[in-house]
């Protein structure tokens, strides 16, 4: 009989490295994908995933099965990802502040093209994937984490709320805002969607 994740972690806690190895093999792909969608860079995502496994390993002695293993794992992963995103943003901000100002840029303020123009450009590139990736990446990091956990990890609301350390009510609001934002951004791709049918769930 296959051991549960919690049992594997408890065995790892007791010193069984093979159990930890099993968890590593089982969760490396979901973790790397989650982190890749959070930070949009595979090398960074893999570094962060290694950091997550290392933290899990370090914390194995203190592990108590009070929640699902995935809740604990993705909570660590989300914290690592959010820290990385914030650090990266901070670094970019410092670079842009430290960079010498270009006289040309100052003279001619950057004009954003109209929304329709930008979408057309994306569609002309025939790069739907990049367009969708950019839409997901444009979400505020906590909304992005909520959507990724909901869509790809298929966690229930209670579990996602625990991962993000918020109430279920706050999570529902977070998810609604995130999907509403995606609905608007991806409108050119999703306008031809089928009419809802009663009781139909989300496509998987």
């Amino acid at each position: 009989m296959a051991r549960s994740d919690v049992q594997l972690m408890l065995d790892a806690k007791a010193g069984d490295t093979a159990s930890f190895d099993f968890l590593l093999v089982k969760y490396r792909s979901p973790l790397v994908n989650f982190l890749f969608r959070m930070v949009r860079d595979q090398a960074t995502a893999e570094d962060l995933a290694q950091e997550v496994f290392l933290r899990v390993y370090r914390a194995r002695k203190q592990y108590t099965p009070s929640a699902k293993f995935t809740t604990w794992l993705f909570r660590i992963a989300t914290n690592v990802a959010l820290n990385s995103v914030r650090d990266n943003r901070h670094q970019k901000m410092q670079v842009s502040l430290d960079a010498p100002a270009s006289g040309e840029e100052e003279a001619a303020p950057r004009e954003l093209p109209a929304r329709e123009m930008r979408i057309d450009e994306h569609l002309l590139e025939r790069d739907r994937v990049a367009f969708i990736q950019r839409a997901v990446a444009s979400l505020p990091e906590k909304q992005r984490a909520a959507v990724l956990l909901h869509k790809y990890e298929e966690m229930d609301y209670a579990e996602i709320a625990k991962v993000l350390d918020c109430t279920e009510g706050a999570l529902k609001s977070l998810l609604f805002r995130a999907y509403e934002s995606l609905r608007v951004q991806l409108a050119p791709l999703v306008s031809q969607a089928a009419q809802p049918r009663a009781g139909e769930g989300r496509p998987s």
Partner: protein
Amino acid sequence: MKCEDVSKGLIAYLDRRTDSAERHEIEEHLAHCADCRARAGEFRGVWSAMDELPAVEPSFGFDARVRQRIAAEPQRAWFRWLVPQPRLAFAAALLVVLAVWVAQRPGNSGNAGIPGPTAAATEQDFNAIKDLGVLENYDVVTKMDALSELVPTAAQQPEKPQPSPSESND
């Protein structure tokens, strides 16, 4: 049910996370509201679009790198755990020694302000030692006025007069 309420409940509805009463209300609303129906379709379209995002695979050697870092961990953890121990042990030992020394100091016997017999003896010894150099100098001793009066007695032992410290002090 208002459109605003339906919008907020659409995610849960499409995700089959609503109870039967709420689901029934939303379905009734959708049957009559084209805008909300369209919105529900768009949400479903968002989910379909997100399915198009490709999954990435961890690169070759990912597991090995994790295992390598983990293999290095116990040593580091043990080292980190061990480092503060000698310091703590040393500090504790020092504290114990200090406590014993302070507890056993003569001044802590309870009558520190009153010089007892021990203190008196120490003072006497000190005075004796203080004059020892003088007493051992034979020339000085023989010329001392105080000793000249004791000549007859001292003549019995002319070579080495050995006045006691108490006599010389008198």
